């Protein structure tokens, strides 16, 4: 019955994804939660847009600017949360001990978390984006191919933060799980979601430009207001994301090793 060892197994990655798809299928509140908040946010900002269209020349220039910003921000947030929540599901179910006495590699776990985050984000943001079409006559997909570039750069940044958060929760226990909900909001004011980086004080601007999300949102505004797709912002976001994702994976693996040193994989709790 013993199977030969291979260093990378799509089947093992698929097993973890399958485990979470089984969980989603058995729990409709989990699926509802994925769609609920992005939709509530979209509806709120949709009405704010309707109001501002008649009162703000900025919004009147491109009525989708706020809705695009809120939905794209949620890509980052949901991408991050998807990684952290899926990992915490394993901790809540006290299943990590069994998982890591199987031949599952930590990096296979990382890829599984990324795939599940992608699925969850597509469900959540996709649902909200579809609801926006009849409700506010706003079609996010009109952004065209740049939307794919925006989406990928934001979700990759979310993965980098999510992996770090998952590592922190593994290392410090479920008492630190609130980090998953609040971590990303520490950088939200610097991501230039609703206003340009130039709005920030001079000393904060270099920090903002070091975030891939700031380049995405600046690029989004250029696309909507000037109808040009600035590839410089895209390249900056991609280059920064290589660094961010590498750091996120390294952080998760380092925390995983620390958990093995401290015996935390068998003793998950607060």
């Amino acid at each position, binding site marked *: *019955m*013993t*199977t*030969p*060892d*291979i*260093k990378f*197994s799509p*089947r*093992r990655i*698929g*097993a*973890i994804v*399958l*485990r979470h798809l*089984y*969980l989603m299928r*058995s*729990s409709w509140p989990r699926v509802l939660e994925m769609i609920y908040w992005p939709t509530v946010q979209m509806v709120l900002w949709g009405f704010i847009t309707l109001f501002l269209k008649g009162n703000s020349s900025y919004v009147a220039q491109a009525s989708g600017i706020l809705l695009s910003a809120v939905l794209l921000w949620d890509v980052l947030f949901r991408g991050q949360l998807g990684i952290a929540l899926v990992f915490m*599901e394993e901790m809540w*179910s*006290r*299943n990590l*001990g*069994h*998982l*890591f*006495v*199987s*031949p*599952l*590699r930590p990096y296979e776990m990382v890829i599984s978390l990324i795939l599940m985050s992608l699925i969850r984000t597509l469900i959540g943001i996709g649902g909200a984006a579809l609801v926006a079409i009849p409700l506010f006559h706003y079609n996010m997909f009109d952004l065209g191919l740049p939307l794919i570039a925006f989406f990928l750069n934001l979700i990759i940044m979310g993965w980098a933060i999510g992996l770090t958060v998952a590592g922190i929760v593994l290392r410090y226990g479920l008492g630190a799980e609130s980090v998953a909900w609040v971590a990303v909001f520490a950088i939200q004011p610097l991501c230039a979601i609703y206003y340009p980086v130039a709005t920030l004080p001079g000393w904060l601007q270099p920090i903002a430009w070091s975030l891939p999300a700031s380049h995405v949102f600046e690029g989004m505004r250029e696309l909507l207001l000037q109808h040009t797709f600035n590839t410089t912002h895209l390249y900056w976001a991609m280059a920064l994301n290589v660094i961010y994702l590498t750091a996120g994976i390294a952080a998760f693996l380092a925390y995983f*090793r620390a958990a*093995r*040193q*401290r*015996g935390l*994989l*068998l003793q998950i709790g607060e």
Partner: protein
Amino acid sequence: MSLSINENSVIEVHQLHKNFDQVNAVNGVSFSVQRGVTTALLGGNGAGKTTIIAMLLGLLLPSAGRITIFGEDMLQNRYRLLHRMNFSSPYVDLPQRLTVRQNLTVYGHLYRLPNLGERIRQLAVDLNLTELLDRRYGKLSAGQKTRVSLAKSLLNEPELLLLDEPTASLDPDTADAIRSHLEQYQQRTGASILLASHNMAEVERMSANIIMLRQGLVVDTGSPTELITRYQRNSMEEVFIAIARNHLPLTVAT
């Protein structure tokens, strides 16, 4: 005080240490586990049993020492070795919302098993789980969960099975059925079992060798009969109490 190390060993542990900050949980332990038999790891609470099992599985990194399993260094070849091993403990859960079949399917894929559906069906028959396959794991009784956990640990038909209190909190009938199944499995496959248990009747029944631990040290080893004779007691329960209270026979104490 270590068992003799020979080529018939599946596990060889040499001078194993584990320190947590200022606490020495395992303090220079050496022992071996022989192929095809059950070896029990005994000791009171905090003696270091679970810590040692976690290190054998690679879940916990030793502070010092060497672990060799099937002749290979565990830390360097962990993933290759894990294909040939498995583990069950009532203290490590499976996902509660998944059904028994879903849980076994997920773990079967993790071990990349061929003919997974048939393997699950056979294990369900062997462990009397057929009626439970489509019930959620979280809805099962403690005894049923233990059987499912055992089924998970037998999925890959391991050559080495590590069991942490496999019959804890089970009624005598269920516990007996589990022991019988493990004995049959061992007879059929020649697997080696390392068992941590507080149930001395279970240990006497199943174990060919016993490793007695106290405060992170191996204090004695031998077969149940040898230990009972050496300590001049009537049962392993009495031997356990004698060791826990440091009432060692002169041959050991010196």
